[in-house]
Each structure stands twice: as C-alpha cells, then as structure tokens.
C-alpha cells in the first residue's frame, strides 16, 4: 500500500516537474498582464492580437518564416534521406556499417560546430545569407534523422518485395514507386515530422546562417526579443498554440500507428 502511494506520488511529482512550465505559460496566456506571474483577470485579448498583425507584425512573419523553412527543409531531407537509406540498404554489410557511422557523426556533432562550419562554408562560397542558406543548413542536419527512421523500415521489409515487383514485369522505376515507396511511407512520414520539428526547434544553426537582412524565425525573434528586455506577452498564447498543435499531431500519429498494428 505504502509502496503504491510512494510510486504514484513519485510519478505525480515527475509529471508536474516536466509539465509545470508549459502549464504556467498556458494559464498566463489567458491574462493581459505584461509580466509573467501577474494575474490581471481572464482575457482572450492576447490571442486575438497575435492574428491582428499591425504592431506585432514581426512576430507573425517570424512564425510564417519558421513554418515555411520547416516544411521545405523537411520535404527535401525526406527525399534525400529516403534515397540515401535505400542506397545504404543495398550496400555490402561492411560498407553499410561505415555509411551508418558517417550518417551518425552529424547527429552527434555539437550544433555549434555544425553552425560555424556551415557559416564558414557559405561565406567561402560567397552565398549571400538568407532564406536559401537557412534552408540548406536545415536540410543538412535533418537528413541523417530521416535516414535513421527509414532504414529500420527497409530492414524489416521482406527483401524479396522489390524483386517480386520486377518479376511481375515492373521496371525498376515502377517497382520503386508502386512497391518500395508505399512500404517505406510510415518511415518517411515519421522522418518528415522529425525533420520538421527539428527545423522549427533549431536556434544555433539558424542564428549563424540567417544573415542580417532582417529575416527572422521564431527562435531568433524570441532571442532578440528577450535581449531587448522582457518577452512580448503575445509569445504566451503563441507558445500555447504551438504546444497544443504538436500535442494533437502526436496523438494523431500514435493513433495511426496503433491502428496499423491491429
């Protein structure tokens, strides 16, 4: 009995520690107070003001940039990562090991190193920094994650599927499109989502590759905002919206996975 009380309360404390900060932000997104921690009565004004633009135009445009960059980077790295995974899968076991290590190095590499090296690369190639460089940088660090989520799918697949398609008269191209890609789809989707969240989340690499033409993503905007002194109150409802969206996305994905298993 005591054991059970202890274990439940331990779990409870753990969950509170994990989710309290987010909960506080959500709670305080429903009040107008400038400073976090002051409750000045329930209000939805902050929510409406994010979407009104005007004074907070820079915030919405940062959000917009973040989403566009995320989508493009995720799509491109999904394509690249899937092709790479298929290639790795068809190597001899020995080269597979080598390639997998090569693929893991960028993941383990500290962000700051990736950021600086990309920055230096773009400078030395004299590519002007802006949208293109941020997207290229994001594709660079997202692709290995897509490889990691597609490869297990390939390994679990019946190795004869592709051959069976060829055997039934499909050209190699058709066999990939009609059989291989549908088989890899779940891995590609989870790779895409992973890449998308990584891209939205990224701050260090973005900061080094975004240039100084006034382009802002959410993370660089918040950073700049915080340095100017105090966070814009509208960040609270925005954080709440992002958190809820991610939560819903996660639930949908899990639901799909559960259904697939049945």
């Amino acid at each position, binding site marked *: 009995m005591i054991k059970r009380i202890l274990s439940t309360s331990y779990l409870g404390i753990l969950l509170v520690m994990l989710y309290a900060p987010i909960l506080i932000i959500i709670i305080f997104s429903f009040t107008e107070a400038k400073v976090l921690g002051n409750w000045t009565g329930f209000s939805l004004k902050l929510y409406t003001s994010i979407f009104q633009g005007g004074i907070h135009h820079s915030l919405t445009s940062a959000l917009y940039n973040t989403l566009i960059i995320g989508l493009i980077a995720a799509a491109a790295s999904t394509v690249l990562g899937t092709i790479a995974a298929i290639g790795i899968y068809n190597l001899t076991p020995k080269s597979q090991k080598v390639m997998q290590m090569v693929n893991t190095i960028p993941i383990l590499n500290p962000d700051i190193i990736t950021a600086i090296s990309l920055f230096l690369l773009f400078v030395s190639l004299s590519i002007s920094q802006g949208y293109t460089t941020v997207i290229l940088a994001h594709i660079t660090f997202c692709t290995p994650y897509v490889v990691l989520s597609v490869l297990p799918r390939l390994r679990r697949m019946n190795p004869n599927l592709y051959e069976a398609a060829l055997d*039934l008269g*499909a050209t190699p191209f058709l066999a990939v499109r009609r059989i291989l890609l549908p088989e890899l789809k779940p891995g590609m989707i989870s790779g895409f989502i992973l890449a998308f969240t990584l891209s939205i989340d990224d701050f260090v690499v973005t900061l080094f590759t975004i240039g100084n033409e006034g382009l802002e993503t959410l993370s660089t905007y918040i950073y700049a905002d915080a340095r100017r002194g105090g966070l814009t109150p509208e960040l609270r409802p925005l954080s709440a919206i992002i958190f809820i969206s991610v939560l819903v996305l996660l639930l949908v994905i899990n639901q799909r996975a559960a259904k697939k298993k049945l």
Partner: protein
Amino acid sequence: MRQTTDIITVEHLSHAFGNKTVLQDINLSIGKGEFVTILGPSGCGKTTLMRLIAGFLKASEGKISIAGHDMTTTPPHLRPVNTVFQKYALFPHLNVFQNIAFGLNLKKLPKEEIQKKVKQVLKIVIMTDYEERDVDSLSGGQQQRVAIARAIVNKPEVLLLDEPLAALDHKMRKDMQMEIKAMHKKLNITFVYITHDQEEALTLSDRIVVMSEGVIQQIGTPTEIYNEPKNSFVADFIGESNILNGVMIHDELVEFAGHRFDCVDKGFAENELVDVVVRPEDIYIFEMSEAAQLSGQVTSSIFKGVHYEMTVITPEGFEFLIQDYHCFEPGHTVGLRVKPFDIQVMKKERLCNSFVGTIVDKSHVRFLKTNFKCNSAHKFPIGSKVRVAVEFQNVILHDSEEEGVLTGVVSFILYKGDHFHLTVRTKDKRNLYVQTNDIWDDGDTIGISISPESIHLEPV
C-alpha cells in the same frame, strides 16, 4: 518423358560472390511443360541458380536461354518467368485482388479482363471470394496460394518456385504438394521447383537435379535418382541408405562387409574399389537360418509408424540400417539377405586425396598453401612440381587447431558401416577427404596433419 522443345537451357553457367564460387559449370536443359526440381542441401547453390534464371543476379560466366532467346543479360521484368518466393513476398499494402492484378495492371489490360482473370486464377488456387482481404489477415497456406496465383495469372513460360512450402507445417505441406502437382497438370506451364526436401522432390517431379557445393551431382527421374544414385552424396541425400566400401570382384559379383554378393552391375574393372548402396527397406531380416548371407545382432529397434527401424551389427563390425514391418528386439541374433537387384554399385569419385605441390627443400613439400614434412621429398629437385597423393586414412585430425599444420571445418559426413568418411574444407576452400573411426560433427573446426611417410609424391 522429355519433350523435344527445351524452354530453358543453361550452358556452362558459373557464378561467384566475390572470390567465393557458388556455381560451377552448370549445364541443364528443361523441357517445355516439365516439372523439374532442383534439390540440394542449404548452401549448395540452388537458390543462386534460381535467381540467375529469374534475372535477379547477373551470371559471372555462361549462358542462359529461355524460350529460345539468349536471356543471360535480360533484366527480370523482361523475362517470361514468374517466381513464387519462399516467404511469399506479397505486397503488404495491397489486398488480395490488387496483389494478383499487379502484373496484369502493368500490361495495361482492360479492367474487365483483369477482373475476369483474377477471378479465374483465384478459383484455381481455391481462394474464391478472397479478393478484398488484406494479405496480412491470411494464414500461411492462404498467402502461399495468393503468391502462386499472382505468378500464374501472368501465364509465364516458366514458373519458378523457391522452397514455396518451407514455412508451412507438415500436414499443410502435404496438401499443398498435391495441389501444386494438380496445378502443373492443368496449366501446362514449366515448373522449376527449388527445395532441400528430398521427399518433396520425389513426390512432385518429372526430373530431379541434385546439387551439392555448386555442382550438379545427378539429373534423373525420381526412380533413377533413388534406385541408381550416381555417387555416395546422392545416395546419402536421397532417402536413407547403407553406404559401404566394396570391391568389384568381377562383373555381377561384389564384395562388401566381408562377404561376396551377387549383383547386377557390370562394366567395372576387376577388383575395382567401389561404393555400394543398399536401401534399408531392401534388406531382408529374419531369424538366423541357412538363407542368411550375413548374420548380426540387433543393437536398436525403433517403431516408426509404418515400419520398425533397426540397426544390426555384423561380427565383422559393419553396421546396417534396416526397415521392416517385423520387430526384432535388441540383442536378438538375426540373418540378413539382399537381392542382387537391390545392390547399387557406384564408381568411387576418388581413391585418395590428390594435389599438385611444389618441393620446398630436401624434406618438405608445399600444397594446400602449407609446408608438409615429407620423407620422399629428397628424390625431386627443389622447386619442381609434383603430384601429391594422400590416402583417406592417413589424414590425421586433431581436436585442437594448434596441433595440426593447417585447420579446416568438417563440411560433410558419410557413415560407411564401420567408419566415417568426412569432407573437410580448408581455409582456402579446398576439400580434404578423411577416413576416420572417430565421431566428428558437421561444422567442427579441426586441426589437420599428415605424417611424413604417408605423403606420396610422383612427378607431374
């Protein structure tokens, strides 16, 4: 039995993965409408041969013709061949109908025709009304039927079946064997069936191709293969058998197990050393009497359902496996008799190990990439090539690898009544044949040595 038109001809086909040869000079022709089984233990190259015929692999050497066209380099999607894979390889994201219609859709046939053909073929494999089912929801046997349907719906010239029943349980396998045989009769498609199960091969085939170590050992009808195995490997692999060393005294008289027997084989040299095969069901066992050619004592007796399987050891020390409906208890003294017709005499593939070697110095000769001490090395000039012969019983095997001058792995074991005949494979893939009384297991790594006086040298 064979028809005049060959649908597949394979000429001098060899294949290697890296430097490992898996197929060696395969020559084979398969007639239109024939049911041919390629039979061999795992690793014998049968799957590689199938993959070469299907086009999944490119042959290192040789030629493959299908339906009269050279298709050695034709990609798989252009060959008139369809395959049933061992693990079915059904497309999991498609339902039964879509799986079967896959090939027809690629041919861009009209919808109604595809519908009709799929329905027909589902009827052939006895899966009517399963069109909309998910393939994952089907049992193993049902998935196998869908896999067969998916292949035969395209009306290929040749249907390749790669161990299609290996994943099914015994009862199901028996049923499916009968159905596959019936389908073959009905469809008039050439079937090439790959299996390691000799019983399956005997049941299904018009002809059997027995393979071992990348080489065809024998091609023949099931009865030919069973009754007249060409060598001791085939005799041992197909069915149960007693294989013994023998001497052909003269035509129709052979000596083995210390006795002389009348037989029907002719054409051997007088006193030629031979291998003799007697099937366990061909030995008559009875209470000791005048009629006995051999006497012996029963050492074990096991009930096998239809018959008893007994081992009898003769006073000369030879062991015989015998199957009979009557049971003789262990310890019982019995008489044995074999009819001349039931004795199969085979040429020995080799009488000793032979290699080409080089004289290293006055007392050493080099072969199998190893220097061996040899008493007669001084008779030849240093550096000259010699023919090396080592008798089977003079190869010494050691438990520990360090004790030998080279190491090897036991790759094949043949019991010859009173001793074992082992094939030992050395590191650089050469075979050494050893006669021994000790019991070794398949896959044992062992040390090998040869005493200096038993290495015989001859000029090349």
